Every structure is written in structure tokens, then in C-alpha cells.
């Protein structure tokens, strides 16, 4: 049996766990790899014009799996930390794929909401295992193994690698070394993992910065526990998980020594981001005053435009740093 997992959205955060879980149960996992022009085009064509870019990209990836797999795995992840929920588009994701696209493979859409025990993480995996006719013992074993892999993944992330690299490390045994050269700048790039780490939609911001010999840190490189302790300084609780995480990460990096600048990458058409970005700016104004820039990416963000803006920002930070000294 083949199960398809679109390489978009949650992929960047939970894929290692899903992959191991399914493979342990003897299911072949098919992914879609890097976003391509074709995928983006088909996503743009099929998804609602008013949707945000990441959702269009997800549609594109899902379409690429049409006819190639027996099931699509699109869990309905509602809440994982007992506090915040995911953006409404995540809550309706399986339904949008099921009802918004024609002739798609059946969708496995188990609900994960650990605010109530019935829908907790383990129960969700257990339910999926049952659907695949696995024995309870096998499910538990697969689940534990999946969890261990996820922990390993997080450890590699904590060391400063980005999700796609970390997946290479744990699944393909690749080795990366990041040696920080003296005098090098360090930037924090905050935003949603599925926007930052999809080199196609982010127009390779991470790579570009590295080429300008800037070391890049993302919220994924901060242990989740540490992030949860950060105050994000907006009076009311942010109730979307990824948005809150972005706010906290921005606050954390602004305080942490050794970070020379913060870039907020926002997705074109993203509802929550319009609010997050303002909050980051306001917080930054009242506090750190660390150089800040926000970059909006869309279907047509040109390589050149983003490159120039990044260069200008790097120059500005360099000048400021020299001035400080």
C-alpha cells in the first residue's frame, strides 16, 4: 500500500515522525519532494484565487500525488499544546482537498486535538494504525519509534541545521558542518516553517543569506520548550500556533545576544500574518531596536527583487555594527 504525504505545510515539522510510523507498519510513503513551477502552477489554478500562497502550494503537491497513491495522509491537526490552535485553513485542510479538488485519492484525516484525551496524539496514531489493519502491538512499536525519530530530528535542528537538511541527516546519513567564522553576521529568520524552508516559495532566502556569509537561525532551531517560555508582549494571547511561535521567536531572538538582525518572512495573502507582523514591529519599537525587515513572498516574487532587498539589509546591518563599535 502506498500513502501519499504532500511535501508542504506540516511536512517541514512532522514528516520524520509520520514517515517512520508508516514505514514501521509496512506502508510505502510517497512524498512529492521540492516544490516545482509545475506544482505551483497547478495549485494556483485549482485553489481559490484568494487563498494564501502556502495553501496553493499544498494544493499543487496534493495534485502531484493524484493517481499515484492509495491514500493521502492529511491529518486534521487542531491543537497540540493544549493552548493554541492552528490557522483555520489547517483545520479545514482535509475538507478543502476532499471537496475542492476532483478525483483525489481518499484522504485519511484523523483529528488530533490534545485538549481532550479522546483525540490526543497517541489516540490519533492508534486510529490511523487501526485503519491500516495493524495489530495494537505493532502500532505501539511504530509509534514509539516514530517519536524517537522526531526527538532525534529536533536535536539535529537544535544544532542549527534547517529541517530539510536535518531530514537528510537522519534519513540519509548526510553530514553537514556549520562552522561559524569570526566576524560573520547572524540573522534570525522568523515566519512559518512551510514558508521559510520551501526554497521555491521563499526564493531561497536561507541560501541567499548564507551566500552573503550570514549565518541563519530560524524558530525551528530553538528547542520548543525554550520558545514556550518567551513572552511575546502582545496583551492578548495569540491563538494560532504558528503565529504565536513566530511572535515568540521574534521576541526571543531580539533578546538573545549575537543576533544582528531579524527578518520576518510573510506569505502573500496570509491572514494571520498581517497581524503578527504589526505586533512584531510594535514590540520591536518598544524594546530592542534590533534591525528588522519584513519580506513578503508571493507567486511571482522575483529572484532579483528579493536579492537586492536582502543585500541592502545586510549592508545596513554591517554599517550599524561598525558604527556601534
Amino acid at each position, binding site marked *: 500500500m502506498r500513502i501519499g504525504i504532500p511535501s508542504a505545510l506540516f511536512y517541514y515539522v512532522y514528516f520524520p515522525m509520520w514517515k517512520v510510523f508508516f514505514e514501521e507498519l509496512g506502508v510505502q510513503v510517497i512524498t512529492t519532494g521540492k516544490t516545482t513551477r509545475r506544482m505551483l502552477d497547478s495549485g494556483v489554478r485549482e*485553489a*481559490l484565487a*484568494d*487563498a*494564501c500562497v502556502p*495553501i496553493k502550494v499544498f494544493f499543487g503537491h496534493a495534485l502531484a500525488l493524484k493517481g499515484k497513491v492509495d491514500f493521502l495522509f492529511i491529518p*486534521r491537526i*487542531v491543537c497540540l499544546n493544549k493552548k493554541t*490552535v*492552528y*490557522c*483555520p*485553513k489547517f*483545520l*479545514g485542510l482535509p*475538507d*478543502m482537498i*476532499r*471537496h*475542492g479538488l476532483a478525483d483525489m485519492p481518499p484522504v485519511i484525516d484523523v*483529528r488530533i486535538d490534545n485538549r481532550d484525551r479522546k483525540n490526543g496524539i497517541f489516540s490519533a496514531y492508534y486510529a490511523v494504525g487501526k485503519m491500516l489493519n495493524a495489530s495494537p502491538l505493532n502500532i505501539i512499536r511504530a509509534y514509539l519509534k516514530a517519536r524517537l525519530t522526531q526527538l532525534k530530528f529536533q536535536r539535529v535542528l537544535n544544532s542549527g541545521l534547517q529541517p530539510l537538511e536535518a531530514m537528510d541527516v537522519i534519513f540519509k546519513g548526510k553530514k553537514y558542518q556549520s562552522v561559524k567564522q569570526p566576524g560573520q553576521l547572524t540573522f534570525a529568520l522568523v515566519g512559518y516553517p512551510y514558508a521559510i524552508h520551501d526554497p521555491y516559495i521563499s526564493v531561497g532566502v536561507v541560501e541567499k543569506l548564507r551566500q552573503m556569509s550570514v549565518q541563519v537561525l530560524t524558530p525551528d532551531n530553538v528547542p520548543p520548550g525554550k520558545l514556550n517560555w518567551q513572552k511575546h508582549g*502582545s*496583551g*492578548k494571547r*495569540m*491563538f*494560532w500556533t504558528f503565529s504565536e511561535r513566530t511572535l515568540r521567536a521574534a521576541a526571543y531572538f531580539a533578546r538573545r545576544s549575537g543576533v544582528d538582525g531579524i527578518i520576518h518572512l510573510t506569505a*502573500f*495573502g*496570509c*491572514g*494571520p*500574518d*498581517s*497581524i503578527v*507582523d*504589526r*505586533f512584531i514591529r*510594535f514590540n520591536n519599537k518598544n524594546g530592542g531596536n534590533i534591525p528588522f525587515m519584513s519580506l513578503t513572498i508571493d507567486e511571482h516574487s522575483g529572484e532579483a527583487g528579493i536579492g537586492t532587498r536582502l543585500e541592502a539589509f545586510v549592508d545596513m546591518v554591517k554599517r550599524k555594527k561598525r558604527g556601534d563599535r
Partner: protein
Amino acid sequence: MRKVTFPHMGESYRTFKMLLNDLGNEVILPPRPSRRTLNLGVQNTPEFACFPLKILMGTYLETIEMGANVIVTSGGVGPCRAGLYAELHKKILHDLGHPVEMIVFEPPRLYPFNFIRNVYKLNPCRLSIKAIIECIKRAWRKLQALDNVEKATHIIRPRELKPGATTKTYKKVLEWIDKAYTTREIIDAETAALIELDNIPRDPERLVLKVGIVGEIYVLLEPASNLEIEETLGNLGVEVERSMFLTGWTRDNTWKETVEGLTVKDAAKPYLPELIGGHGRDSIGNTILYSKRNFDGVIQLAPFTCIPEIVARTILTSVSRDYNIPVLTFFLDEQTGKAGMTTRLEAFVDLLRRKKLQAPDNKLLTASTF
């Protein structure tokens, strides 16, 4: 001196003015949102903020110009952006140098203390609890009267003989309700208004289409934000039923008229089992119920970048096919023009009319009426 203001939502301001006055506040009436309101709002909010947030921003800036320094609004908890509006508005207004006070009402059941504290703040007359409850009850009744009269116009307008008669009468009778103060007066004004509307000469033979309106609450309730779509439709000979009013959803209606007695939530379940915030699930459930009640079509109104309505629209594609009910969606923002909207509406109404005339069960009906 504290001068209190609040968001503009359709005709509801008439009620809120009365209530706040009763509690002893000086009230600055929010003007009906205009081009200027939109411009002010757009200039001072993030680009992808939702449309209601922009309009409210514009309204607040206008009322601040008029001297308001206390803003009363609602909060609400996730999972949608509306819950964060007040916070963002406050930060932006303070940043612009307007030290306004924001009084944010959260759902009283979840935050009883917040509710009591806020009422206390807005009660400089120091009325007793009992008197306050009386005031709220009276205000609620007025709100109901306003809603009932508005509903009547939806039915009468498509049938009026003289174009514009309903709108003209409506404007007149609104003032009657506005002036009514005691509960008795409110009820009398409401009755008089309904009778006055009923006196408008109508054409009983006309083939009137029925269209349900679903979508996000603010753009449904504020005609200035949806370019008076209900009036336009009425003039095109369409009776509209809106799925949402401040005094409650049209639940009673739907219960009676659908055979199965489905709730909106249950109806939506096969398509969207999750509450996604905003009114996304209601849009889907109501569309299904309208179809079961043999409506001719559904119009969905959503603010540009509205997250739940985008999800709903994606799913409505299937609903529309499965239930054979045409759905037209408008994503509204400051650039939506009335001419463009009217053209799309005319085409939609044409389609519905042709569909209705072709439907087998309607042949008899039309044959007998013509």
C-alpha cells in the same frame, strides 16, 4: 469628559446609542462608513488585514476626530482574527497618538468578571443592577424591532410596484423606532412600521426568486460594506433571506421548514466536521439548508483574505454541485465597485431565473401565473 463610541453595524447604532445614553454616557455616533472611512482605514492597517478590521479602523479615526475617547467593542476568542482586532486597533491608535480607552466585551459566559467590570466602567450614572438589566432588556427589544422591520423589507422590496417605494418607507419607519423609548413605545413603533411597510402596493403575480445570503458577520450586517447588496437584489426581483442577524440566527425558521429539522452544524458536518472559526461552517450549513428549502440560489459574502470563508468557498464548490444550488461569492474589499457587483448579480439572477423556469416542477406554476 468621556465620550463613548462603538462600531457601526447596519442600523444597530440606534440601539447602542440608547443603551449607552441610559447608562449616563455621552455618545459620539459612528457615521455610516463612507469612502473616506475606507481610505482612513486602509491607510492605517496592514495590507492583508481583513476588511472589517480596516473599516472599523476608519470608523474609529472618524469618531476620534469628532471627539470620542472611549471605544466600546467586542473581543471574542479564536480561532479567528476578530478576537485580536481590539488589541491591534488599540496599538495602532496609540501609536498614531490617540490615547483612547478601549473597552472590550468578551463573551460574558467565559469572562463574567470582564463583563461586570466593563459595565461598571460604562455606568457613570451608577444605576442599580436591576435598572441596568432593565435597560439592556429594552435595548434588546429595540434591536429585535429593527431586525424584524428589516426582514420585512427583504420580502416586500422584490414585489413593490413602484421602484424605490420600500427603501423610502423603510427610511421613514426607522425613525419611528429610533424615537421609541419605553418597551411599550418600541412595540407600538414596530407594529406601526410593519403595517406601513405592508401598505406598499405590490404585484402578487411576479415571479420572485429566493436567494439565501451567507458569509462573514460584519459584511453581512453592514450594508455599507457590501454595497447594499440586499437592496440591489430586491430591486432585481429577488427576495433575500440573510442567515445572520444581531438578535440571532434564523434558526427557528430553518427548524420549521426543513423536513429533517437539521441544524446548521449537522448539515455542514459531512463537508466540514470542524469548527474553523469565524462563520465558515455556518456558510456551508446554511447553504445546504437553503437548498433543502428550495431556494433558488445562495450568495456568499466574505471579506478579502477572510480565512474561514476561503475554506468555506473551497468546499462550497462540492456542496453547490451535490445539492444543485448555484452559489455566487463576493470577496469584498475597498476596491469592490458597485457597478461591477451589479453586473455580476444581474447575470446570476438571469441564470437563476432560467433555471427556475426550466425546472419541471415549476412548469405548472408558471403556466398558471401567466
